[in-house]
């Protein structure tokens, strides 16, 4: 219904557009947006095509091989690490029920490592485990730790796995406490570790159940659909841009490597201005970087899906998305510097360029709105109408492209795509200059640099200044492109004297 409404609104906007919208004066506007559009949309097309190739040609070959090997390729021991902290009881029950049920279904030794803080969770999970009465090969291991963050929790759990001396072919699945394993997830995912010895980590498609209103539900589902498309494209190069913390699988030897565990527990970046920044969040980026640095390949399984239960931190889209984007994009920006520094030879050219593009694409979505605003200010407000038409049409195409990864799309997608691009770019550029600000949304754990008040104020002012400078350069460039400002002529300046 939303889609029908969107199409009607767009058609009405086009049909009742003032004549001025179609006048030659707007050509200049479209040329400026078009140049940027050609770049951005052709890049999106590349991902779209690669995604199709991966899902319809490259991966099915792998799947057939995996199916052919059968149970022989399954690891002799699997560890499922589940981190839970302040997750609602009903979500915890569903997540553990799904994990235990999948472990039972798998039919081989599985140890579920429950990484917990609260005693209540421990009781609940133990009760659940006893109630489901799994066979002896399914074990439950509790790792209780203080509420100092997911990194510490994961590291403790990985060390607990390490002390179990897992066999060489073991696999370690890392799950969030709000992720539901779907039936067959283990048996359909794990054979690839033996089939592809160069692969160090695997992740899968995700979809979500959102306990909120339709807008936030659509926003979350849109993000997962976009993730599916992008991950499929990246997977063609056998390297991904993240091994998602909601569900990833690592080779046992990787997950129990002391340097891997240390990277999970105590990762940091040395920033020229902020000094050493301890990474509070983004353990999935740390594990991803570890694999990338070690030269391991990564695999994406488009035909295996896990479901996450989303509890947005607010019922309002703006509040919830701001908090989540600050965390996600902060993690991305903190780690990607290092990944880019590895160079295209180490990372692979396509992956490396995608990392570069992540840096560029945080500025490009701001270009369009600025062009429209500056044209409206300098020439005519009709350009805002023209821009609305342009956005409405292009985002509709982008939303329709998601039909290649999901059976249906929402009419809210075009609007949310635009929101995600522009507001996301604002959040990215904000956090780029404040990489030391990190916060876990649910746990309310934040990283606070140990600075004197004067130094903290100075650092904050410098962040504001650099952010303003960067945005000013962008705005000045757009103002130049739209002739709102003209390039100063030195001969003109000389004429003053």
């Amino acid at each position, binding site marked *: 219904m939303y889609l029908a409404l969107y199409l009607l609104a767009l058609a009405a906007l086009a049909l009742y557009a003032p004549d001025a919208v179609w006048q030659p004066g707007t050509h200049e506007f479209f040329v400026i947006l078009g140049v940027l559009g050609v770049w951005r949309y052709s890049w999106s097309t590349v991902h779209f095509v690669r995604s199709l190739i991966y899902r319809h040609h490259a991966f099915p070959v792998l799947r057939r091989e995996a199916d052919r090997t059968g149970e022989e390729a399954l690891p002799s021991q699997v560890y499922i690490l589940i981190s839970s902290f302040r997750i609602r009881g009903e979500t915890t029950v569903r997540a553990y029920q799904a994990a235990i049920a999948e472990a039972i279904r798998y039919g081989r030794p599985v140890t579920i490592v429950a990484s917990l803080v609260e*005693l209540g969770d421990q009781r609940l999970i*133990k009760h659940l485990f006893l109630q489901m009465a799994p066979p002896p090969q399914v074990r439950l291991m*509790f790792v209780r730790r203080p509420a100092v963050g997911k990194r510490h929790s994961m590291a403790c759990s990985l060390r607990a796995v390490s002390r179990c001396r897992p066999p060489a072919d073991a696999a370690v699945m890392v799950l969030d406490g709000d992720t539901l394993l779907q039936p067959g997830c283990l048996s359909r995912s794990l054979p690839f570790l033996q089939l592809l010895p160069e692969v160090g980590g695997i992740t899968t498609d995700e979809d979500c159940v959102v306990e909120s209103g339709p807008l936030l539900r659509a926003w979350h589902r849109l993000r997962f659909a976009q993730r599916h498309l992008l991950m499929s494209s990246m997977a063609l190069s056998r390297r991904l841009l993240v091994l998602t913390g909601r569900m990833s699988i690592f080779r046992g030897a990787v997950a129990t490597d002391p340097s891997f565990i240390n990277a999970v527990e105590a990762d940091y970046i040395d920033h020229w*201005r902020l000094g050493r920044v*301890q990474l509070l969040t983004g353990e999935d980026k740390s594990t991803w970087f570890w694999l990338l640095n070690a030269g391991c390949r990564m695999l994406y399984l488009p035909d295996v899906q896990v479901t996450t239960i989303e509890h947005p931190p607010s019922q309002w889209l703006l509040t919830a998305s701001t908090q989540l984007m600050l965390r996600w994009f902060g993690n991305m920006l903190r780690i990607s510097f290092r990944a880019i520094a590895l160079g295209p030879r180490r990372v692979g050219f396509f992956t490396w360029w995608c990392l570069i593009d992540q840096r560029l694409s945080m500025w490009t979505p701001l270009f369009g709105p600025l062009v429209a605003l500056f044209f409206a200010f300098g020439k005519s407000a009709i350009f805002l109408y023209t821009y609305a038409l342009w956005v409405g049409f292009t985002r509709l195409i982008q939303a329709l492209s998601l039909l290649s990864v999901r059976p249906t799309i929402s009419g809210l997608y075009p609007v949310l795509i635009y929101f995600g691009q522009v507001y996301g770019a604002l959040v990215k550029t904000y956090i780029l200059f404040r990489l030391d600000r990190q916060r876990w949304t649910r746990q309310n754990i934040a990283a606070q640099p140990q600075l004197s008040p004067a130094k903290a104020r100075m650092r904050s002012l410098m962040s504001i200044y650099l952010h303003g400078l960067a945005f*000013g350069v962008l705005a000045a460039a757009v*103002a130049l492109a739209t002739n*709102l*400002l*003209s390039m100063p002529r030195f001969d003109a300046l000389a004429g003053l004297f």
Partner: protein
Amino acid sequence: MMQPQIVHEAEVHRQHVRLKIPIQVEIDGVRYQVDDWSMGGFGVESVMTSRQPGEKFSARLFFPFEDFDMSMRFDARMVYADQEHGRFGCAFLSISHDQAALFRYLIDAYLSGEVVSAGDILQVRGRENTAMARYQPLDELFSPQEEPWSSTVKRYGVYAGFGVAGLALLAFVLFGIKERYFTIQVSNAYVDAPVVQIRAPIAGRLISALQPGEPLVVGSLLGTIYGAEGASVTLESPCNCEVLQRIGVNGQLYQTGDALAMLVDTDQPLLIRVQLPLEDVEQLQIGDRAEIRFPGQSELLYGQIERINLKPHLDALDGEAGDLPISRRLAQVLIRPDQPLETQDYGSLAAVRFL
């Protein structure tokens, strides 16, 4: 031995207060029910006369489970003995590492209200489960470190660079705003000069004496008109001029008043004429500098305002009759270029920007 299905691994321990857990202690062959205990010691609601406060002795703790008891030997010291209230307390001495681990485990297991099985106990005894809790790499990694001076210099150098960049951007934006909103620019200016038009004084055939490019002085022969019945009139230059346009064709017949040539007075410099609305002219004054650009020429000329005419002849405006409304009548600004213009530039369109 078969592994237990539920294992407690690497617990992080809290400070426990005194616990009400039903364990027993055996001292000198007598078993007492322990009223409360902690990692530091235990208290018993009973009277014991065989030991005095401060005295050290060996004892044994008994942990009752569903189907078995577990005991643990330890050394203790009596801390107090309250005969009046029938209570005494003892402190543990030199608890071993394993004993401490077992204690902690039991405390947590009891607190959670869970039934502890024998397998759990054996499992926890069999490993070094406190080692990782002590592992604190973060302190080492994230303790403040002294920065080398070269890094400090480099950082401040980058700060300075960004400072300069900020100033440059500010200057650029301010200059751009001034250019766009506070600078008068026109693109309909043109080169103007005093022009003399030579017309036919009588009707007749023109015999021109004009040579292309030849400068004229006052009285120079321009040509002769031969009228009917042998009449002729000689045309002379009224000024020191150059021929701007030769209209009359040699040998052709012309009527009285027909234009024959246009001359430019070379005694007067060529000026740039700009027409501006009054609100713009109010910002200008004689002597202001202006930048002049001719289409197709990259080189810029500069000049200054020589005259501002606020009372132009109404019939001279835009070549139209003087029936324009007052609001559309334009003032005339005349700019004298620093370098004199060539006569052939007369009439050229120009863009003018007042500095």
